[in-house]
């Protein structure tokens, strides 16, 4: 049973991951990546981290769905109805990756892994919460700052119109001048 529960998602994860770069349709590539990451999330649950596994599933579903739209918008040849050859250095990359995998595998199989120290807490989610939001909150604060900076940076990068374009010099306009008026008018 355990064998099936591990190997089915494992094979699917790697298989779908490889297919991402084989498919010539953007939609298929994106959702193949999603399938791969969903399997990863499932395996994280299998490892006893229910909360994080489900969060991975949630985040990846939302991310990949949005990604699909950007893919269709920006990729050359969105549907990839014509075969897509947008690769370079395939051979060198294959050699590098093969070597890396061999190296990692050798390391994994030969390393003298330490014994387990301690035992899992009853509620790993509580444990995670305490270490994220506990006395210091350092990790959480850093992540929050990073997220905030990203929001600002991405908006600056992606938008063409600033608030002076929208609300006029001096920001006096009562309603923003947008190509499509929003619901609140700001």
């Amino acid at each position, binding site marked *: 049973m355990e064998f099936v529960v591990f190997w089915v998602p494992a094979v699917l994860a790697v298989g779908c991951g490889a297919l991402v770069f084989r498919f010539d349709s953007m939609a298929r590539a994106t959702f193949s990546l999603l399938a791969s990451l969903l399997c990863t999330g499932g395996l994280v649950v299998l490892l006893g981290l229910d909360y994080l596994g489900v969060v991975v599933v949630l985040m990846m579903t939302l991310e990949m769905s949005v990604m699909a739209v950007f893919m*269709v*918008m920006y990729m*050359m*040849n*969105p*549907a*990839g*109805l*014509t075969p897509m050859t947008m690769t370079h250095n395939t051979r060198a990359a294959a050699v590098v990756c093969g070597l890396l995998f061999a190296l990692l595998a050798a390391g994994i199989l030969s390393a003298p892994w330490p014994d387990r120290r301690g035992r899992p807490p009853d509620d790993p989610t509580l444990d995670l919460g305490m270490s994220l939001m506990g006395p210091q909150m350092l990790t959480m604060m850093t992540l929050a700052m990073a997220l905030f900076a990203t929001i600002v940076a991405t908006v600056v990068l992606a938008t*063409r119109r600033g608030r002076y374009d929208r609300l006029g010099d001096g920001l006096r306009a009562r309603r923003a001048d947008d*190509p*499509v*008026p929003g*619901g609140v008018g700001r």
Partner: protein
Amino acid sequence: MDLRGRIVRAALGRPRVLAAVSAGATERRLAVEAELARRGWPCAAAPAEADLLVVAADPGPGTAGAGTADWVARLWEAMPAPRARVPLADAGEAAAVLDHGLAELRRRGGARHGGGHRGGHAPAPPAGSPDSPQDPDGPHAGHDSGLVDGLPLAGRADDRDGLRLDRLHLPLGPALPDWPAGLVLRVALQGDVVQRAAVEADPPGPGRLPFWNEPWLRAAAGERVARGEAARRLCAAHLDSLGRFFAVTGWPDLAARARYARDRALGGAGAAELSALVRPLTRRARGSRTLRWLTAGVGVLPAGRARSLGVAGDAHGRMLGWLDAVARAASACDDGAPLAADPAVGPRGPVHGPVPASRALLDALPGLLEGAEFACARIVVASLDPDLDELARAPLPGAAHG
């Protein structure tokens, strides 16, 4: 096998009907819609969900006739089996034609499972929207020029947001749900934003009076027409427009009520009954702050232009105008006095203007549609609701019977 036959029978008992309506067939469309509502048969929004195709399309003059045959044939191709198709030549035959269609559908539904000769491959209709079968570019088309699977690929062009994304050319209409019959808009879409639109109106064949203008035209021709009859027609015309408007803004409940009132108006209900039907409709539509929030500021016409077209400045205002006119007309339905021939103002505007009122509305469309998102574009079209019947060569006063 009897069980299977019964399942097919039950399943097809109330088929979904798709009406293919060309310009000039307004009366037949109304008859079909009223009959469907009476029987509780659903109206299909797209060929994929339709079982029965009712063709109320005249072969128009010249090339337009060939065009009509073409789009109807494509609709038919896009319907999955079991399916049936019936022509409707006269509004009075609607009930008989639907009965015939149902019998035909049941026969085919049975035959498919018996003989299986209709089974096998589903037809492969062209890509694009179900109602715009000539659309050559599916959205799967890419940047590169060339053909894939026989479909040309989309090119890039300037867009509203300065990104130069793929542009998709496709015709909207003539068989979109809640769409003016006969209207085809050739639009360039980027995502769901209309970048450019051109109107292609298929004028109806000669020989039929525009249904909504009929009382005024007849009065102008010297016939005695009761004022109440004109008011009734006006009321029904605006209720029809309101039905479309509400359907397109996504308020199916109010759309259904408007259409029920319209069917009653055309079915000869008295002024009291009509007013009772119209009053709650008006109150709800007027009182809905959500509707105002959603449709105010959509499809804004400059004041002068709006005045010359005889409509209000934005979609919400145009809807309010219809509501007022409907309420007024509903109470005047029983007026027996003769209709004066002179200020012949039909539902869309003056009946005898140098240019048909709907032509002016059509000319206003492309400018309003550019840069609008698809949903807004639909609302703009529904809020102007041009009547393509009017584009037939307008019969001169006194020659209406010619």
